[in-house]
Protein backbone atom coordinates (compact mmCIF):
# COMPACT_ATOMS: atom_id res chain seq x y z
CA UNK A 1 0.00 0.00 0.00
CA UNK A 2 1.43 3.41 -0.91
CA UNK A 3 1.85 6.09 1.69
CA UNK A 4 -0.96 8.10 0.08
CA UNK A 5 -3.21 5.06 0.06
CA UNK A 6 -2.55 4.55 3.79
CA UNK A 7 -3.38 8.17 4.47
CA UNK A 8 -6.61 7.90 2.50
CA UNK A 9 -7.50 4.74 4.39
CA UNK A 10 -7.05 6.60 7.67
CA UNK A 11 -9.16 9.50 6.36
CA UNK A 12 -12.01 7.20 5.41
CA UNK A 13 -11.93 4.52 8.09
CA UNK A 14 -9.70 5.62 10.97
CA UNK A 15 -8.31 8.94 12.16
CA UNK A 16 -6.12 11.17 10.06
CA UNK A 17 -4.52 14.47 11.03
CA UNK A 18 -4.12 17.14 8.40
CA UNK A 19 -2.16 20.17 9.49
CA UNK A 20 -4.16 23.09 8.16
CA UNK A 21 -2.40 25.77 10.19
CA UNK A 22 -1.91 27.72 6.97
CA UNK A 23 -5.58 28.65 7.03
CA UNK A 24 -6.46 32.19 8.08
CA UNK A 25 -7.75 32.61 11.62
CA UNK A 26 -9.06 35.98 12.72
CA UNK A 27 -10.51 37.03 16.06
CA UNK A 28 -13.25 39.58 15.48
CA UNK A 29 -13.78 41.75 18.55
CA UNK A 30 -16.62 44.13 19.28
CA UNK A 31 -20.32 44.03 19.98
CA UNK A 32 -21.13 44.93 16.38
CA UNK A 33 -18.89 42.26 14.83
CA UNK A 34 -21.61 39.74 14.01
CA UNK A 35 -24.02 42.36 12.66
CA UNK A 36 -21.26 43.75 10.44
CA UNK A 37 -20.38 40.32 9.03
CA UNK A 38 -24.09 39.64 8.50
CA UNK A 39 -24.21 42.71 6.24
CA UNK A 40 -21.06 41.79 4.37
CA UNK A 41 -21.65 38.12 3.66
CA UNK A 42 -24.18 35.73 2.23
CA UNK A 43 -25.47 33.67 5.13
CA UNK A 44 -27.78 34.50 7.99
CA UNK A 45 -25.40 35.10 10.88
CA UNK A 46 -27.73 36.92 13.24
CA UNK A 47 -29.40 33.61 14.00
CA UNK A 48 -26.11 32.04 15.06
CA UNK A 49 -26.38 30.46 18.51
CA UNK A 50 -23.77 30.47 21.26
CA UNK A 51 -21.08 27.93 20.49
CA UNK A 52 -22.32 27.49 16.95
CA UNK A 53 -20.38 27.74 13.68
CA UNK A 54 -21.74 28.66 10.28
CA UNK A 55 -20.22 28.99 6.84
CA UNK A 56 -20.65 32.20 4.92
CA UNK A 57 -19.17 33.89 1.87
CA UNK A 58 -17.85 37.44 1.84
CA UNK A 59 -18.79 38.88 -1.54
CA UNK A 60 -18.10 42.13 -3.33
CA UNK A 61 -20.68 44.39 -4.95
CA UNK A 62 -20.61 42.24 -8.11
CA UNK A 63 -21.49 39.18 -6.07
CA UNK A 64 -18.01 37.72 -6.48
CA UNK A 65 -16.18 35.84 -3.77
CA UNK A 66 -13.73 37.63 -1.50
CA UNK A 67 -13.44 34.47 0.59
CA UNK A 68 -15.39 31.56 2.02
CA UNK A 69 -15.18 31.43 5.79
CA UNK A 70 -16.58 29.83 8.91
CA UNK A 71 -17.84 32.14 11.65
CA UNK A 72 -17.81 30.79 15.20
CA UNK A 73 -19.82 32.51 17.91
CA UNK A 74 -17.84 31.68 21.03
CA UNK A 75 -19.67 32.14 24.34
CA UNK A 76 -18.08 34.93 26.35
CA UNK A 77 -15.41 35.54 23.72
CA UNK A 78 -15.03 37.40 20.43
CA UNK A 79 -15.98 35.74 17.16
CA UNK A 80 -13.53 33.39 15.52
CA UNK A 81 -13.32 33.52 11.74
CA UNK A 82 -11.64 30.65 9.87
CA UNK A 83 -10.89 31.46 6.25
CA UNK A 84 -8.74 30.35 3.33
CA UNK A 85 -4.94 30.38 3.51
CA UNK A 86 -3.31 33.72 2.82
CA UNK A 87 -6.56 35.73 2.90
CA UNK A 88 -6.06 37.62 6.17
CA UNK A 89 -4.92 40.81 4.43
CA UNK A 90 -7.76 40.80 1.92
CA UNK A 91 -10.40 40.13 4.57
CA UNK A 92 -9.06 42.67 7.06
CA UNK A 93 -8.88 45.33 4.38
CA UNK A 94 -12.35 44.53 3.02
CA UNK A 95 -14.11 44.43 6.39
CA UNK A 96 -12.33 47.57 7.56
CA UNK A 97 -13.43 49.37 4.40
CA UNK A 98 -17.04 48.82 5.40
CA UNK A 99 -16.58 49.60 9.08
CA UNK A 100 -17.82 53.05 10.08
CA UNK A 101 -19.20 53.64 13.56
CA UNK A 102 -19.35 49.99 14.51
CA UNK A 103 -17.63 48.59 17.57
CA UNK A 104 -15.48 46.19 15.57
CA UNK A 105 -11.81 45.23 15.60
CA UNK A 106 -10.06 42.44 13.75
CA UNK A 107 -7.02 40.57 15.01
CA UNK A 108 -5.11 38.16 12.76
CA UNK A 109 -4.10 35.17 14.91
CA UNK A 110 -3.08 32.92 12.02
CA UNK A 111 0.60 32.90 13.00
CA UNK A 112 0.14 32.50 16.74
CA UNK A 113 -2.25 29.55 16.44
CA UNK A 114 -2.19 26.16 14.76
CA UNK A 115 -5.08 24.18 13.30
CA UNK A 116 -5.00 20.39 13.27
CA UNK A 117 -7.86 18.90 11.28
CA UNK A 118 -8.94 15.44 12.38
CA UNK A 119 -10.83 13.47 9.76
CA UNK A 120 -12.19 9.95 9.87
CA UNK A 121 -14.94 8.05 11.66
CA UNK A 122 -12.67 7.30 14.66
CA UNK A 123 -11.66 10.92 15.26
CA UNK A 124 -14.18 11.71 17.97
CA UNK A 125 -13.57 8.49 19.84
CA UNK A 126 -9.80 8.89 19.70
CA UNK A 127 -9.82 12.48 20.91
CA UNK A 128 -12.21 11.61 23.74
CA UNK A 129 -10.14 8.61 24.79
CA UNK A 130 -6.87 10.53 24.70
CA UNK A 131 -8.11 13.55 26.61
CA UNK A 132 -10.62 11.97 28.95
CA UNK A 133 -11.52 15.09 30.92
CA UNK A 134 -11.87 17.37 27.91
CA UNK A 135 -15.28 18.65 26.89
CA UNK A 136 -15.80 17.92 23.21
CA UNK A 137 -18.46 19.16 20.77
CA UNK A 138 -21.71 17.25 20.98
CA UNK A 139 -22.88 17.88 17.44
CA UNK A 140 -21.97 19.24 14.03
CA UNK A 141 -20.94 22.88 13.70
CA UNK A 142 -20.43 23.12 17.45
CA UNK A 143 -17.45 24.70 19.22
CA UNK A 144 -16.08 24.13 22.67
CA UNK A 145 -13.19 25.41 24.69
CA UNK A 146 -11.23 22.39 25.84
CA UNK A 147 -8.27 21.52 27.97
CA UNK A 148 -6.31 18.95 26.00
CA UNK A 149 -3.80 17.53 28.43
CA UNK A 150 -3.12 20.94 29.96
CA UNK A 151 -3.14 22.82 26.63
CA UNK A 152 -5.88 25.45 26.33
CA UNK A 153 -7.53 24.53 23.08
CA UNK A 154 -10.58 25.06 20.95
CA UNK A 155 -12.32 22.14 19.29
CA UNK A 156 -14.78 22.70 16.49
CA UNK A 157 -16.85 19.92 14.94
CA UNK A 158 -17.43 21.12 11.40
CA UNK A 159 -19.63 19.93 8.62
CA UNK A 160 -18.07 21.88 5.79
CA UNK A 161 -20.07 21.31 2.65
CA UNK A 162 -20.54 17.66 3.56
CA UNK A 163 -16.98 17.12 4.77
CA UNK A 164 -17.00 16.30 8.49
CA UNK A 165 -13.94 17.32 10.48
CA UNK A 166 -12.80 18.06 14.01
CA UNK A 167 -10.77 21.26 14.00
CA UNK A 168 -8.36 21.44 16.92
CA UNK A 169 -7.04 24.97 17.36
CA UNK A 170 -4.16 25.46 19.78
CA UNK A 171 -1.32 27.91 20.36
CA UNK A 172 1.34 27.30 17.70
CA UNK A 173 3.84 26.23 20.33
CA UNK A 174 1.56 23.41 21.49
CA UNK A 175 0.71 21.93 18.09
CA UNK A 176 3.52 19.41 17.95
CA UNK A 177 2.71 17.98 21.37
CA UNK A 178 -0.96 17.49 20.51
CA UNK A 179 -0.13 16.01 17.13
CA UNK A 180 2.45 13.58 18.59
CA UNK A 181 -0.03 12.46 21.27
CA UNK A 182 -2.61 11.69 18.58
CA UNK A 183 -0.07 9.82 16.48
CA UNK A 184 0.96 7.75 19.52
CA UNK A 185 -2.72 6.94 19.99
CA UNK A 186 -2.94 5.62 16.44
CA UNK A 187 -3.77 8.60 14.23
CA UNK A 188 -2.11 8.90 10.82
CA UNK A 189 -0.62 12.13 9.59
CA UNK A 190 -2.22 12.84 6.22
CA UNK A 191 -0.74 15.02 3.52
CA UNK A 192 -2.51 17.83 1.66
CA UNK A 193 -2.68 15.43 -1.30
CA UNK A 194 -4.71 12.97 0.77
CA UNK A 195 -7.00 15.75 1.94
CA UNK A 196 -7.46 16.89 -1.64
CA UNK A 197 -8.31 13.32 -2.65
CA UNK A 198 -11.15 13.32 -0.15
CA UNK A 199 -12.22 16.81 -1.15
CA UNK A 200 -12.42 15.87 -4.80
CA UNK A 201 -14.27 12.64 -4.00
CA UNK A 202 -16.87 14.62 -2.06
CA UNK A 203 -16.92 17.48 -4.54
CA UNK A 204 -15.85 20.16 -2.06
CA UNK A 205 -14.24 23.16 -3.80
CA UNK A 206 -11.68 25.36 -2.10
CA UNK A 207 -11.06 29.03 -2.61
CA UNK A 208 -7.86 29.70 -4.52
CA UNK A 209 -7.46 26.10 -5.75
CA UNK A 210 -10.84 25.85 -7.47
CA UNK A 211 -12.50 29.26 -7.13
CA UNK A 212 -11.19 32.79 -7.01
CA UNK A 213 -12.34 36.39 -6.95
CA UNK A 214 -13.73 36.03 -10.46
CA UNK A 215 -16.32 33.50 -9.31
CA UNK A 216 -19.64 33.93 -7.57
CA UNK A 217 -20.95 31.53 -4.90
CA UNK A 218 -23.40 29.78 -7.22
CA UNK A 219 -20.62 28.87 -9.66
CA UNK A 220 -18.92 27.15 -6.76
CA UNK A 221 -21.97 25.12 -5.79
CA UNK A 222 -22.03 27.02 -2.51
CA UNK A 223 -25.75 27.86 -2.35
CA UNK A 224 -25.90 26.15 1.05
CA UNK A 225 -23.99 29.12 2.44
CA UNK A 226 -26.31 31.69 0.87
CA UNK A 227 -29.47 32.92 2.52
CA UNK A 228 -32.02 34.02 -0.05
CA UNK A 229 -34.36 35.42 2.60
CA UNK A 230 -32.19 37.43 4.97
CA UNK A 231 -32.23 40.68 3.02
CA UNK A 232 -29.42 42.97 2.02
CA UNK A 233 -25.70 42.20 2.04
CA UNK A 234 -22.96 43.40 -0.28
CA UNK A 235 -23.56 41.73 -3.63
CA UNK A 236 -26.99 40.41 -2.68
CA UNK A 237 -28.86 41.74 -5.71
CA UNK A 238 -26.45 40.09 -8.12
CA UNK A 239 -26.49 36.72 -6.36
CA UNK A 240 -30.27 36.78 -6.07
CA UNK A 241 -30.68 37.64 -9.76
CA UNK A 242 -28.30 34.86 -10.78
CA UNK A 243 -30.41 32.42 -8.83
CA UNK A 244 -33.86 33.74 -9.78
CA UNK A 245 -33.19 33.99 -13.50
CA UNK A 246 -30.94 30.94 -13.70
CA UNK A 247 -28.11 33.04 -15.08
CA UNK A 248 -25.16 31.08 -13.74
CA UNK A 249 -22.88 30.66 -16.75
CA UNK A 250 -20.30 28.24 -15.42
CA UNK A 251 -19.93 25.97 -12.45
CA UNK A 252 -17.68 23.60 -10.61
CA UNK A 253 -18.20 19.99 -11.61
CA UNK A 254 -16.62 16.65 -10.85
CA UNK A 255 -14.91 14.98 -13.79
CA UNK A 256 -13.01 11.79 -14.39
CA UNK A 257 -10.44 10.96 -17.00
CA UNK A 258 -8.70 7.93 -18.41
CA UNK A 259 -5.26 9.54 -18.18
CA UNK A 260 -3.29 12.08 -16.22
CA UNK A 261 -4.78 15.56 -15.93
CA UNK A 262 -2.89 18.77 -15.35
CA UNK A 263 -4.21 21.52 -13.11
CA UNK A 264 -5.33 24.44 -15.27
CA UNK A 265 -5.61 22.43 -18.50
CA UNK A 266 -8.26 23.70 -20.89
CA UNK A 267 -11.31 21.53 -21.42
CA UNK A 268 -12.79 21.36 -24.91
CA UNK A 269 -16.28 20.46 -26.05
CA UNK A 270 -15.66 19.78 -29.72
CA UNK A 271 -13.49 22.68 -30.83
CA UNK A 272 -14.75 25.12 -28.20
CA UNK A 273 -12.88 25.79 -24.98
CA UNK A 274 -15.51 25.41 -22.28
CA UNK A 275 -13.61 25.13 -19.05
CA UNK A 276 -10.49 24.32 -17.10
CA UNK A 277 -9.28 21.56 -14.83
CA UNK A 278 -8.97 22.49 -11.16
CA UNK A 279 -7.89 20.26 -8.24
CA UNK A 280 -6.74 16.88 -9.52
CA UNK A 281 -6.83 13.89 -7.23
CA UNK A 282 -3.39 12.34 -6.73
CA UNK A 283 -4.71 8.79 -6.58
CA UNK A 284 -6.92 7.11 -9.17
CA UNK A 285 -10.17 5.42 -8.25
CA UNK A 286 -10.86 2.26 -10.25
CA UNK A 287 -8.18 3.41 -12.74
CA UNK A 288 -9.93 6.73 -13.30
CA UNK A 289 -8.40 10.08 -12.41
CA UNK A 290 -10.90 12.31 -10.60
CA UNK A 291 -10.79 16.09 -10.55
CA UNK A 292 -12.82 19.20 -10.06
CA UNK A 293 -13.26 21.49 -13.05
CA UNK A 294 -14.94 24.79 -13.87
CA UNK A 295 -17.10 24.31 -16.95
CA UNK A 296 -19.41 26.55 -18.95
CA UNK A 297 -23.15 26.12 -19.21
CA UNK A 298 -24.11 23.79 -21.98
CA UNK A 299 -21.17 21.52 -21.28
CA UNK A 300 -21.54 20.85 -17.57
CA UNK A 301 -24.31 18.22 -17.57
CA UNK A 302 -23.31 14.83 -16.11
CA UNK A 303 -22.37 12.53 -18.95
CA UNK A 304 -20.91 15.27 -21.13
CA UNK A 305 -17.72 14.14 -22.85
CA UNK A 306 -14.94 16.69 -22.97
CA UNK A 307 -11.30 16.54 -23.97
CA UNK A 308 -8.09 18.33 -23.07
CA UNK A 309 -5.83 19.87 -25.69
CA UNK A 310 -3.63 16.77 -25.31
CA UNK A 311 -6.52 14.55 -26.29
CA UNK A 312 -7.31 13.15 -22.84
CA UNK A 313 -10.95 12.10 -22.62
CA UNK A 314 -12.75 13.70 -19.68
CA UNK A 315 -16.28 12.89 -18.56
CA UNK A 316 -18.40 15.13 -16.39
CA UNK A 317 -19.70 12.92 -13.59
CA UNK A 318 -21.66 15.36 -11.46
CA UNK A 319 -22.24 19.01 -10.71
CA UNK A 320 -21.13 20.30 -7.32
CA UNK A 321 -23.96 21.43 -5.08
CA UNK A 322 -23.08 20.40 -1.61
CA UNK A 323 -23.75 20.99 2.02
CA UNK A 324 -26.54 21.22 4.49
CA UNK A 325 -29.73 23.17 3.75
CA UNK A 326 -29.31 26.95 4.05
CA UNK A 327 -29.44 28.46 7.53
CA UNK A 328 -32.56 30.36 6.52
Amino acid at each position, binding site marked *: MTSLAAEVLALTSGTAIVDRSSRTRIVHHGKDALD*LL*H*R*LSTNDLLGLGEGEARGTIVTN*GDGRIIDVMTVVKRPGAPLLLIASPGRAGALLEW*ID*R*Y*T*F*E*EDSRLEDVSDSTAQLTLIGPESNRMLAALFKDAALPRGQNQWVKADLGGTPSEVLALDYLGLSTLEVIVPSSAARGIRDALVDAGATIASPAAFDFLRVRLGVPEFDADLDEQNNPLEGGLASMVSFTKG*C*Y*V*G*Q*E*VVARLDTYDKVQRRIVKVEADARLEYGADLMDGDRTVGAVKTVSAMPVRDRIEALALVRKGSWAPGTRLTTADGVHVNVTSTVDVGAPPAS
Partner: protein
Amino acid sequence: MTTQLEQPIPINTIRITEKAASKVKEFARSRSMEKFGLKVGVKGGGCSGLTYVLDIVSGPDEADKVIEEHGLELYVPKKSFVFLAGTLLDYSDGLNGKGFVFTNPNAKKTCGCGTSFAV
Protein backbone atom coordinates in the same frame (compact mmCIF):
# COMPACT_ATOMS: atom_id res chain seq x y z
CA MET B 1 -42.44 64.36 -4.86
CA THR B 2 -38.87 65.37 -3.98
CA THR B 3 -37.24 68.78 -4.16
CA GLN B 4 -34.47 69.81 -6.52
CA LEU B 5 -32.26 72.70 -5.37
CA GLU B 6 -31.33 75.33 -7.94
CA GLN B 7 -27.63 75.35 -7.08
CA PRO B 8 -25.38 72.29 -6.72
CA ILE B 9 -24.49 71.53 -3.13
CA PRO B 10 -20.88 72.35 -2.18
CA ILE B 11 -18.79 69.29 -1.47
CA ASN B 12 -17.88 70.48 2.01
CA THR B 13 -21.42 70.10 3.28
CA ILE B 14 -24.68 68.21 3.04
CA ARG B 15 -28.10 69.82 2.78
CA ILE B 16 -31.57 69.03 4.04
CA THR B 17 -34.82 70.34 2.64
CA GLU B 18 -37.31 72.19 4.79
CA LYS B 19 -39.77 69.34 4.30
CA ALA B 20 -37.28 66.74 5.53
CA ALA B 21 -36.28 68.92 8.47
CA SER B 22 -39.92 69.33 9.45
CA LYS B 23 -40.41 65.60 9.30
CA VAL B 24 -37.45 65.02 11.60
CA LYS B 25 -38.84 67.53 14.09
CA GLU B 26 -42.18 65.79 13.91
CA PHE B 27 -40.56 62.43 14.75
CA ALA B 28 -38.59 63.99 17.60
CA ARG B 29 -41.77 65.57 19.06
CA SER B 30 -43.51 62.20 18.93
CA ARG B 31 -40.70 60.85 21.12
CA SER B 32 -40.93 63.85 23.49
CA MET B 33 -37.37 64.86 22.66
CA GLU B 34 -36.62 68.50 23.43
CA LYS B 35 -32.94 68.74 22.47
CA PHE B 36 -32.10 66.72 19.38
CA GLY B 37 -30.35 66.55 16.08
CA LEU B 38 -30.26 64.20 13.11
CA LYS B 39 -27.38 61.76 12.81
CA VAL B 40 -26.71 61.20 9.12
CA GLY B 41 -24.22 58.52 8.25
CA VAL B 42 -23.43 55.43 6.26
CA LYS B 43 -22.73 51.88 7.26
CA GLY B 44 -21.23 48.99 5.39
CA GLY B 45 -23.41 46.33 3.87
CA GLY B 46 -26.54 46.60 1.84
CA CYS B 47 -26.71 45.14 -1.63
CA SER B 48 -24.70 47.90 -3.29
CA GLY B 49 -22.11 48.16 -0.53
CA LEU B 50 -23.10 51.12 1.64
CA THR B 51 -26.37 51.95 3.40
CA TYR B 52 -27.63 55.28 4.64
CA VAL B 53 -28.20 55.61 8.37
CA LEU B 54 -30.55 58.14 9.96
CA ASP B 55 -31.12 58.49 13.69
CA ILE B 56 -32.55 61.21 15.90
CA VAL B 57 -30.08 61.70 18.74
CA SER B 58 -29.67 64.06 21.66
CA GLY B 59 -26.36 65.53 20.47
CA PRO B 60 -23.27 65.06 18.31
CA ASP B 61 -20.40 62.69 18.98
CA GLU B 62 -16.94 64.23 19.35
CA ALA B 63 -15.78 63.68 15.78
CA ASP B 64 -19.06 64.56 14.07
CA LYS B 65 -19.28 67.43 11.58
CA VAL B 66 -22.21 69.65 12.65
CA ILE B 67 -24.32 71.37 9.97
CA GLU B 68 -27.36 73.48 10.71
CA GLU B 69 -30.20 74.12 8.29
CA HIS B 70 -33.91 74.95 8.74
CA GLY B 71 -33.44 75.04 12.51
CA LEU B 72 -32.15 71.44 12.63
CA GLU B 73 -28.63 70.27 13.39
CA LEU B 74 -27.20 67.45 11.27
CA TYR B 75 -24.41 65.35 12.77
CA VAL B 76 -22.23 63.59 10.20
CA PRO B 77 -19.49 61.21 11.40
CA LYS B 78 -16.08 61.95 9.87
CA LYS B 79 -15.66 58.66 8.02
CA SER B 80 -19.20 58.90 6.61
CA PHE B 81 -18.75 62.46 5.39
CA VAL B 82 -16.46 61.38 2.54
CA PHE B 83 -19.35 59.40 1.08
CA LEU B 84 -22.05 61.98 1.77
CA ALA B 85 -20.38 65.24 0.74
CA GLY B 86 -22.72 67.22 -1.51
CA THR B 87 -25.77 65.11 -0.63
CA LEU B 88 -29.30 66.48 -0.43
CA LEU B 89 -31.67 64.83 2.07
CA ASP B 90 -35.34 65.26 1.19
CA TYR B 91 -38.62 63.70 2.24
CA SER B 92 -41.09 62.10 -0.15
CA ASP B 93 -44.59 61.51 1.16
CA GLY B 94 -47.96 60.67 -0.30
CA LEU B 95 -49.24 57.37 -1.64
CA ASN B 96 -46.10 56.72 -3.66
CA GLY B 97 -43.80 58.34 -1.11
CA LYS B 98 -40.49 56.73 -0.29
CA GLY B 99 -39.84 58.55 2.99
CA PHE B 100 -36.42 60.09 3.41
CA VAL B 101 -34.63 60.28 0.07
CA PHE B 102 -30.92 60.88 -0.50
CA THR B 103 -29.65 62.56 -3.66
CA ASN B 104 -25.97 61.74 -3.45
CA PRO B 105 -23.56 62.88 -6.19
CA ASN B 106 -20.99 60.32 -4.99
CA ALA B 107 -23.28 57.35 -5.60
CA LYS B 108 -22.36 55.57 -8.83
CA LYS B 109 -25.11 53.03 -8.42
CA THR B 110 -27.97 52.32 -6.08
CA CYS B 111 -29.88 49.18 -5.30
CA GLY B 112 -33.44 48.56 -6.41
CA CYS B 113 -34.94 49.71 -3.13
CA GLY B 114 -32.79 52.86 -2.94
CA THR B 115 -31.43 52.31 0.55
CA SER B 116 -28.03 51.07 -0.56
CA PHE B 117 -25.48 52.69 -2.82
CA ALA B 118 -21.95 52.27 -4.14
CA VAL B 119 -19.35 54.96 -4.80
